[in-house]
């Protein structure tokens, strides 16, 4: 079948210019066909039967790409394109299809997102409804970030997060000696300061109950605490599962398998509904705390298996070497085994962390409203019905930014700790 395309002859280097110009022309013709078709409602091949003219752009670009597929043409760009996107007929079809799909979909998407969208205003009447109505996000912005936290107290959340960001950034720039103290402060002291600041109740700060917390700030609070706790818990579980003491081993296995086998949504229900029943009388534990504990234990089980994978991958010789130098169990693990194992599992740990951050919207089911929960609330407000799409796109973008930065950071760590070769 392909042989029939050779009415110009085999594409060869002898007639390089002829083939490249004819090929490029056909390819461009295919693209123009798609553009005219999708944006100007014109069909330059309408004289053909419908079932053929539907495929004409693909045929044009396919034949065009076939003609320009000349090995060692001597033109660097052409050689590169041929090698990467035009290696064989299958490759050529994929390339054309992807280009067509992008042409058809990207401009309308950009139009909806930006060019036809409305940004400034205070009510939904100001939206033209031709594109996205970002006024919705704009008006609700404070609620999406801070939840139902009282407006007059929002500075407390801002201050906490500014301190956090400031400390983290300064940790990157100071000498290693001071960095150590900043990190200890960040891990062990700062969380209490921040929680005190946000919840209030002393030092003349107004008490703000946790049900009023919400929005993106709650996403961060839950994620940060769960990340901080689930890592060490997971590490101990991983070590426990490999312990030679049967009690430690079997209780670790039981714990891990229990939490891995239960859906998070059930765990959250249990934490909010059933856990108070098991607490002794008079002991009150805030719902937010219970939820954080539940998420921590749930993700710790996954973390444990990820870390165990790293431990498993180390050769026995590393244990032998550690032992033969007189190191006991903890010294050997802290100095020799864990640094290597954790380095190996950075991708897996990042994976679990990302999953944790993206699991936080589930706390919706126990009545805590973080970013997605607040959007849910906003979209059902009678004043603002019908803007769910904008809300969810906004949430998607925010989560993507958070997760992508975490992913990049994990890749940076991988490179930083790469010491072999």
């Amino acid at each position: 079948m392909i042989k029939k395309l050779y009415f110009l002859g085999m594409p060869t280097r002898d007639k390089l210019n002829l083939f490249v110009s004819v090929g490029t022309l056909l390819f461009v013709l295919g693209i123009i066909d798609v553009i005219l078709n999708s944006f100007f409602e014109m069909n330059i091949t309408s004289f053909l039967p419908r079932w053929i003219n539907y495929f004409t752009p693909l045929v044009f670009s396919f034949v065009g790409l076939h003609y320009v597929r000349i090995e060692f043409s001597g033109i660097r760009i052409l050689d590169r394109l041929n090698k990467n996107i035009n290696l064989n007929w299958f490759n050529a079809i994929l390339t054309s299809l992807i280009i067509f799909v992008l042409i058809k979909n990207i401009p309308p998407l950009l139009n909806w997102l930006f060019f036809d969208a409305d940004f400034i205003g205070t009510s939904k009447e100001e939206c033209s409804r031709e594109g996205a109505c970002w006024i919705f996000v704009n008006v609700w912005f404070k609620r999406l970030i801070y939840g139902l936290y009282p407006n007059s107290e929002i500075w407390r959340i801002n201050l906490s997060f500014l301190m956090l960001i400031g400390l983290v950034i300064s940790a990157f720039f100071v000498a290693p000696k001071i960095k150590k103290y900043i990190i200890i402060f960040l891990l062990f002291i700062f969380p209490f300061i921040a929680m005190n600041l946000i919840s209030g109740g002393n030092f003349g700060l107004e008490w703000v109950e946790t049900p009023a917390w919400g929005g993106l700030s709650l996403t961060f609070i839950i994620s940060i605490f769960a990340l901080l706790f689930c890592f060490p818990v997971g590490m101990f579980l991983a070590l426990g599962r490999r312990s030679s003491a049967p009690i430690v081993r079997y209780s670790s296995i039981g714990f891990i398998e229990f939490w891995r086998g239960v859906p998070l949504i059930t765990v959250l229900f249990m934490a909010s509904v059933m856990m108070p029943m098991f607490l002794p009388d008079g002991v009150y534990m805030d719902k937010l705390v219970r939820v954080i504990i539940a998420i921590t234990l749930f993700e710790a089980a996954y973390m444990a298996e990820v870390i165990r994978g790293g431990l498993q991958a180390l050769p026995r010789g590393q244990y032998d070497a550690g032992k033969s130098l007189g190191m006991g169990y903890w010294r050997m693990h802290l100095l020799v085994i864990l640094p290597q194992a954790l380095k190996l599992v950075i991708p897996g740990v990042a994976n679990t962390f990302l999953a944790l951050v993206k699991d936080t919207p589930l706390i919706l089911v126990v009545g805590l409203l973080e970013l997605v929960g607040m959007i849910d609330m906003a979209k059902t407000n009678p004043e603002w019905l019908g803007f769910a799409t904008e809300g969810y796109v906004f949430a998607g973008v925010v989560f993507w930014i958070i997760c992508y930065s975490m992913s990049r950071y994990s890749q940076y760590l991988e490179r930083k700790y790469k010491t072999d070769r």
Partner: protein
Amino acid sequence: MSDQIIEMLDVNKWFGDFQVLKNINLKVSQKQKIVVCGPSGSGKSTLIRCINRLEEHQKGKIIVDGIELSENTKNIEKIRAEVGMVFQQFNLFPHLSILDNCTLAPIWVKKTPKTQAEEMALKQLEKVQISDQAKKFPGQLSGGQQQRAAIARALCMEPKIMLFDEPTSALDPEMIKEVLDAMVNLAKGGMTMIVVTHEMGFAKEVADEVIFMDEGMIVEKAETKEFFANPKSDRTKLFLSQIL
């Protein structure tokens, strides 16, 4: 004899049903150099791994420097700090530089101050002639250099006994000599050494006694010259004829 540093009495060990060590009796006195040879699977490695209890023995007694090996973990750690070991696969810590490999145990196990530990490490690295590689990571070194670094790492703990578990078996032929030279120097310095190796040249040059093991038993134990000149058992004769 008071200068006996290692004493193994009727040591037996099983891996499941398989008996790897059968009634091993061995006495090593201070500054003695012993070479252990034998076919693979004869229990040579297990024998020396029992001395610092990387393997547990199930029957018999092992006394190292006056301390009997038992379940007591404090004793085990004490003995391991006194017994250096060099492995076939080097087993350097790949996440640490050569210098840090050498200072890790002195700093954290023996609580040596860091500067002192580094001085010591550089001295030992100098002895095995790789002090110029101190800042590199193990993955950047050749096999021979890695093995010499491993020897230096063990020496940094100032051990009384050094165990070598086939130290040259994983090396390219041209790198064997540099490692053997380092071991010969160590032997001349008066270290007590037990070496599992197939390098008979090294045995002839350094060893006071040679032990031949087969099927978990010590078949023959003799002074080096005697061992090579007129081996007693047929099994030893066969082995020597194949290896020399």
